[in-house]
């Protein structure tokens, strides 16, 4: 694959992380780092996580593994064996970063703790990603993504009002932990550029998840009140923001809030504005748009958009419900795309709500060539996946190689780079070290 300038292409990484940290090194690989994924002989346990290509559950077919391991090489190695540990230490001499997610103390117990590794390589950055961090009363707690969402404080606020709290799907706590691990690693790298010193980076998934909670802890500290679940209502104004339309759903409060006048004109031009021009709705519409009312009216305003909308909620509920009904009827006559383009051109920030198919077919994303195709001829497929989260002008994001097969780079790393002989390889393979 074509290679261009790459931001991290002088960086060598060993990846021995599980699902909580595997995204970290994908982020680095796609920015140019040379990443070696170390798999247990026989294949990484992550390869038994689906979905699978055509539901065929062989280890090379795991789309979970494939998604998170593009751009990386693979070697097999059992670091818990004596020979494996020796080989690992040899590799450590020449890497910049190791990312791991074993429970705190495990690496020390097998003789590969930070104190040992930094003697081998004082410039090493060791990034350890765990659910709660390397220290503290919960450090040995078992966890997964669900527990991360629970103890990070976000889960309680999600889901139907009556419960149960319902988690975010798609391993978002793992994404947070991995993203923070990438940040910590690169902060350590920025410092190493100046000081030439390595660092041990200690990532807690729980700490990262607290960052997703926005005001949950702040509000408790200010008001001694816990945030309540409000279902799908928008938190700041307590109003509906998602509505069905002809071919799906859109995200936008009734009439588009500040853009209500422009939206009403559109609706009128199609005979869908109902009776909303009646006098009884005039003050609500003004409040929606943040227009100060005449002196003596009920509205309290600080001039800020949010407070005008809050004052709108002082009006009789049936009026607001009727406005939403008229809005809903209009939406049902248009597709997501028509509403998106039409509203945005009128200055209203309406967005379509997409499922995965909607995302893959989304006009904006396809016009921007966001998706990336990677061929897997051995598996008989071309995978179309998400592309660059960012576009760097000098050092573009790029998937430089497909996700590896098990031990695909054993020969390159062990024989070409470490100089092991054919006999060494045979012996180590027979002993299940590699």
């Amino acid at each position: 694959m074509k290679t261009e300038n790459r931001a991290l292409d002088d960086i060598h990484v060993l990846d021995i992380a599980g699902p909580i940290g595997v995204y970290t090194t994908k982020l680095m690989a796609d920015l140019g780092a040379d990443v070696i994924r170390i798999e247990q002989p026989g294949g990484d346990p992550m390869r038994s996580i689906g979905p699978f290509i055509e539901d065929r559950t062989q280890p090379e077919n795991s789309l979970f593994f494939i998604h998170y391991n593009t751009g990386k090489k693979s070697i097999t190695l059992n670091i818990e064996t004596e020979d494996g540990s020796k080989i690992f230490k040899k590799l450590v001499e020449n890497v910049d970063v190791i990312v791991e997610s074993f429970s705190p103390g495990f690496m020390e117990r097998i003789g590969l703790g930070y104190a040992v590794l930094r003697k081998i390589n004082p410039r090493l950055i060791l990034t350890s990603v765990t659910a709660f961090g390397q220290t503290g009363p919960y450090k040995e707690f078992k966890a997964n993504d669900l527990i991360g969402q629970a103890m990070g404080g976000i889960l309680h606020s999600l889901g139907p009002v009556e419960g149960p709290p319902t988690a975010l799907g798609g391993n978002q706590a793992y994404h947070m932990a991995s993203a923070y691990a990438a940040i910590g690693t690169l902060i350590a790298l920025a410092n190493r550029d100046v000081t030439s010193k390595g660092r041990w980076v200690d990532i807690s998934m729980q700490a990262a998840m607290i960052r997703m909670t926005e005001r949950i802890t702040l509000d408790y500290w200010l008001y001694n009140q816990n945030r309540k679940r409000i279902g799908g209502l928008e938190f700041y104004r307590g109003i509906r923001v998602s509505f069905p339309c002809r071919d799906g759903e859109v995200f936008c409060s009734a009439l588009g809030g500040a853009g209500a006048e422009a939206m009403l004109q559109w609706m009128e031009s199609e005979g869908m504005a109902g009776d909303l021009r009646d006098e009884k709705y005039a003050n609500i519409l003004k409040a929606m748009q943040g227009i100060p009312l005449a002196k003596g009216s009920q509205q309290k305003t600080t001039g800020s958009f949010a407070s005008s909308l809050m004052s709108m909620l002082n009006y009789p509920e049936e009026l607001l419900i009727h406005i939403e009904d008229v809005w809903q009827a209009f939406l049902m006559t248009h597709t997501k795309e028509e509403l998106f383009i039409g509203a945005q051109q009128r200055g209203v920030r309406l967005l379509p709500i997409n499922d995965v198919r909607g995302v893959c077919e989304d006009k904006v994303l396809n016009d921007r060539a966001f998706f990336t195709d990677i061929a897997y001829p051995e598996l008989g497929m071309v995978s179309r996946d998400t592309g660059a989260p960012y576009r760097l002008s000098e050092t573009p994001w790029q998937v430089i190689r497909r996700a590896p097969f098990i031990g695909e780079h054993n020969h390159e790393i062990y024989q070409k780079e470490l100089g092991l002989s054919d006999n060494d390889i045979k012996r180590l393979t027979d002993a299940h070290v590699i």
Partner: protein
Amino acid sequence: MVANKTRLLLKGIRVVDFSWVQAGPWVGRFFANYGAEVIRIESTLRMDWARNVPGDPEVLNGKHHKGALFTNVNCDKLGITLNLKHPKAIEIARKLIAISDVVIDNFTADVMENLGLGYADLIKIKPDIIALSMPVFGKKGPYRNFGGYGNAIWGMAGLDSLSGNPGQPLTTSIALADFGPNPTHATIALLAALHYRHRTGKGQFIELAQLESTACWLGPSVLDYTVNRRIATGHGNSSLYAAPHGVYRCMGDDRWCAIAVQTEQEWVSFCKAIGKQELIDDFRFSSLAKRKGNEDQLDWIIEAWAIERTPEEVMTRLQDAGVAAGVVETGEDLLLHDQQAKHREYFVTLDHPDGKAFCENTTIAFSKTPARVRRPGPVMGQDNEYVYKEILGITEEEINQCYVDGVFD
């Protein structure tokens, strides 16, 4: 973990932060927390919406209230006021950029260019500048002037469809895109660019289109569609790979515990821990496949056990047995009861002109250089004197004239 005079990791880096509200400012916060000098540019004529959240009076019960959201988001940053409509303000901004490393904005597409502060302008001032923009749909193309808020972006990027029960996606009321994918990806890109510049002397422009960055957190579900033509849906709190796996109501008002039994060995330990050894040999539950097939019955049994215990008791008992379990924590739990939060000092209160300010502490721990938030977010123009006089060397007279002319509004 107490920060002391130890050198902070990003000391020496200077960031000019034009961004506002949430997604942008969290990026600068990463840099500020670890020692970079981050200068937030604001104007009284165009207030950051977060300065009115909450919209309470300034002080209540000795606590800083009005704009406490802003204060938390912008910890450790310096704050200056600059009225960017005034040509003198643009001149001053350019002087600042000339001695800085990074410029951040999260405006829609043409705003910085119209101010004369687009990337093409910036490289004339400082050729190796690293500039980050965070428009929702990218800076080029027919959608570049379209906009969106964090929770809507999450929905447009398909993330809501992964959550909730099958056929009933969850519309989240928290602007997750603003706290998850967007500020983290932006920070990663900036740090990578800084490393590249260290090696080569070259800066660059980074565009983070928020919709695209957010869509990256769809994970393998995109491959599941493009390869298998399967459209992912939420699956509540259950998992394909573990059972029991869910959220169970406990004793108390709206209190819950999450439980995840991930291996056959843990299943045995779990049954013993809840005093139901008979379940180990119960043919309905003797393998993962069986437990999945009879999940309703299994959950019913667990619910009956959990409802009689506090979530703390459930968590402790199961963790002692080597099973993943966690209290579904509220703000109160995190602030008052969570022992790990206390040990790692996730939350601090700092002195603020309006009393005590609440701040989320740094999240990443580093060997030998622990970091702790040092300062709450600035009040408007708090650092005008320091930045204009000490950093830029503008004379007292010129500064006064600027105030008179509205340059610092």
